[in-house]
């Protein structure tokens, strides 16, 4: 053991030395409690939000979404689109360099997009419509489509997982199903691999050579100015301890305190609690459309009727300032919001559900609810659903498990007796379900989301949205998708909730965004 200790000591000394020298220039550190442990570092390989956030720290993107959900250029300086919408040419900004000093080139961009396109759902769709990608010169590349695709910029400016981050070509050459081992990016922060303690600490330092855009920061778009020298993510498995650490000033920023803790945090004069994500999260109760009783749309709709959003939100989130009911499948507060076809969920009435269920052929088949006990919000959702369904006349078989088990079990299409399931709960961050292209809304059982809803009409409506080129067309097809989703009772929707951030008052410059960014923030 002693040699490792010495080893660590040496490394620490090596790192500490330059730091102590620059300490004269008052080095600043932002100490953050992230929402999860950063378990792996490849934002293409995994969809984990924490890895996405890590990606934003060290990588840059071609386009980015601003706070009005509009796509804005980020690495791209200028771009052109041909009349038929099939040929796109993009030119990169000047001065983009990777952390190792190499310039960012078209070659890097193309390799990165290819790797992303092999894994990401939206990327796969883009690639399916893509004829070729080629470099025009070092800073310009051309995208040629084989058919019209309405969401080119939306895809490239996708804010949430998997984000098309730009990596050096040599890194992007990694098999998309293997993890990258080189963490060179071109983003505003540099990952310090030596200081990474998985399960505990991640350290980033400011990338001195990063050239931010001139526009002010706006969500993922705008100038990414690193205002601190170091950002340290320190993961806390225990919420109470995390809260206490913030209150005593041992950390500066707490990304996702449990909403129930906010009264305590708010009572501390040094701490500010606020909602930073305008879209919030949307709770889902997902049915398995393959198995009885939920292979019958009417039974699904009956179940949805019982799902009173207030009860879910009060149970799982608590304080009313952090949630609202939302009967749109797209997050309330986003352009596509509507309540078309949502009468079924707006009732929230167990008696109505009971009556509706009586109309169906439901025969008392037990409903298997998978309850992930290690995720409090979902655990609470499950308990409420069980309670509601029982009241509505369902027989419920509640099965407790951890999230890891749930994630593998939900992939099973087998009957309940062979490890299948009927309902699980999850939430999507608003940005992930912002339009009909979200996989959550798929009506194709082969390529779609767990639960495997099958509805040709729904798929047709989604395809129409993808092809749509005007805002009016888009809105119309989005509404059609929503109506269809409610008609077939694809999923129960449990409300929109906002997880606040909490930070000490010496932290300034937070960016309002569905994703937590750490540029623009300064610490006194």
């Amino acid at each position: 053991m002693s040699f490792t200790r010495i080893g660590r000591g040496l490394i620490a000394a090596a790192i500490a030395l330059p730091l102590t020298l620059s300490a004269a220039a008052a080095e600043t550190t932002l100490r953050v409690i992230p929402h999860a442990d950063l378990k792996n570092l490849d934002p293409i390989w995994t969809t984990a939000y924490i890895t996405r956030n890590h990606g934003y720290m060290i990588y840059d993107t071609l386009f980015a979404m601003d706070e009005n959900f509009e796509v804005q250029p980020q690495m791209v300086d200028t771009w052109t689109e041909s009349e038929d919408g099939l040929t796109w040419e993009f030119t990169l900004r000047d001065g983009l360099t990777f952390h190792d000093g190499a310039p960012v080139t078209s070659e890097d961009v193309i390799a990165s997009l290819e790797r992303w396109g092999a894994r990401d759902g939206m990327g796969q769709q883009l690639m399916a419509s893509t004829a070729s990608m080629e470099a025009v010169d070092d800073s310009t590349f051309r995208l040629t489509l084989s058919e019209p695709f309405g969401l080119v910029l939306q895809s490239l400016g996708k804010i949430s997982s998997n984000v098309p981050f730009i990596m050096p070509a040599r890194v992007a050459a990694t098999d998309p199903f293997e993890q990258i081992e080189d963490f060179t990016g071109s983003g505003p922060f540099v990952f310090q691999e030596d200081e990474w303690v998985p399960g505990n600490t991640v350290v980033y330092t400011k990338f001195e050579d990063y050239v931010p855009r001139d526009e002010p920061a706006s969500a993922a778009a705008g100038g990414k100015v690193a205002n601190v020298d170091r950002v340290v993510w320190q993961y806390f498995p225990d919420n109470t301890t995390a809260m206490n650490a913030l209150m005593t000033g041992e950390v500066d920023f707490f990304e996702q305190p449990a909403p129930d803790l906010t009264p305590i945090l708010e009572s501390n004069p040094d701490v500010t609690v606020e909602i930073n994500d305008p879209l919030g999260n949307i709770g889902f109760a997902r049915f398995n459309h393959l198995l009885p009783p939920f292979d019958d749309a009417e039974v699904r709709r009956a179940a949805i009727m019982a799902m009173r959003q207030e009860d879910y939100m009060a149970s799982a989130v608590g304080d009313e300032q952090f949630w609202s009911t939302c009967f749109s499948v797209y997050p309330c507060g986003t352009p596509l919001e509507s309540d078309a076809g949502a009468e079924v969920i707006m009732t929230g009435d167990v008696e109505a559900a009971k009556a509706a269920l009586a109309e169906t052929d439901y025969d008392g088949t037990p409903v298997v609810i998978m309850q992930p006990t290690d995720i409090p919000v979902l655990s609470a959702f499950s308990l409420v659903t069980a309670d509601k369904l029982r009241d509505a006349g369902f027989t419920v078989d509640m099965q407790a498990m951890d999230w890891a088990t749930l994630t593998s079990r939900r992939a099973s299409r087998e009957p309940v007796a062979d490890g299948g399931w009927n309902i699980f709960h999850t939430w999507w961050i608003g940005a992930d379900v912002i339009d009909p292209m979200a996989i959550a809304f798929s009506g194709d059982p082969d390529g779609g989301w767990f639960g495997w809803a099958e509805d040709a009409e729904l798929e047709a409506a989604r395809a129409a949205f993808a092809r749509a080129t005007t805002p009016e067309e888009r809105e119309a097809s989005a509404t059609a998708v929503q109506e269809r989703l409610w008609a077939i009772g694809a999923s129960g929707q449990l409300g929109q909730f906002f997880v606040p951030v909490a930070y000490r008052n010496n932290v300034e410059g937070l960016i309002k965004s569905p994703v937590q960014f750490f540029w623009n923030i300064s610490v006194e």
Partner: protein
Amino acid sequence: MAEGVAPDVAGAAAPLPSARDVAVWRIALRNRGVLWGGVVLALIALVAVIGPWFVVDPTNLNPMTRLRPPGEAGLMGTDQLGRDVFSRVLSGARVSLVVGLAVAVIAIAIGLVLGLVAGYVRWTDAIIMRVMDGLMSIPAILLAIAMISLSGATLGTVVAAIVIPEIPRVTRLVRSVVLTVREEAYVEAAIAAGTRVHMIMVRHVLPNTIAPLIVQATYICGSAMLTEAILGFLGAGIPPEIPSWGNIMSEGRTFFQLTPWIIFFPGLALAVTVLAVNIVGDGLRDTLDPRIARTMR
């Protein structure tokens, strides 16, 4: 010939205090710890059995009246889902007692068989004890977490996960008793009388394991209830729908500083119960056989 310092004048007539089983319970109850601990446990058991009939359904959600303090809603307030903490604590008594008892009984039963076999059938000794060494070397909590989170959280897996690490200890204890007892002259006399091995076990060896096992069982019972709570804390406990004291506490831990009653009442109930179980265990140990204190944990 050996005359002790303490008076051996008791001589022929008086029964020895080392409690030959005839009057074990009467003797044990003379110990104040056993008596009071027993009374407390009996009360808790009584509450556990009949209590839930007199209160509202502990799984009844009422999100609109969540996190209410004691008195305002129910005797012990409500939790984050608006469930009545009092009725949950009462029902939790059932679960915790069932876990404690089940773990104790199963661990003792399996350990007893393994210990008897290892102690008496020479060639199995090395095999069984190596396996036990292996099990013993795995930290109990880790094993339990792994088992539960991997094979699914049901009451059964939780009990099994707590039982397995206890088995080696029981096995060791039983084996050591067997090894001691088989050297006893009366066992040799029984061998000389042609008594078959299994009858020697049943008649002569088994009864000697009872006193130490009763004591061991109380400790296992107490620690099982605690382990259950800790597993709940680590997110690998009994399904949250079943209110156990551990579950109530682990669900309420986020609210420790906000609504301490959610943790306080089940914590108090757990502490009192485990305390009573341990006091009974200590009392039994002192009365049944002071010597086994050595071989205990």
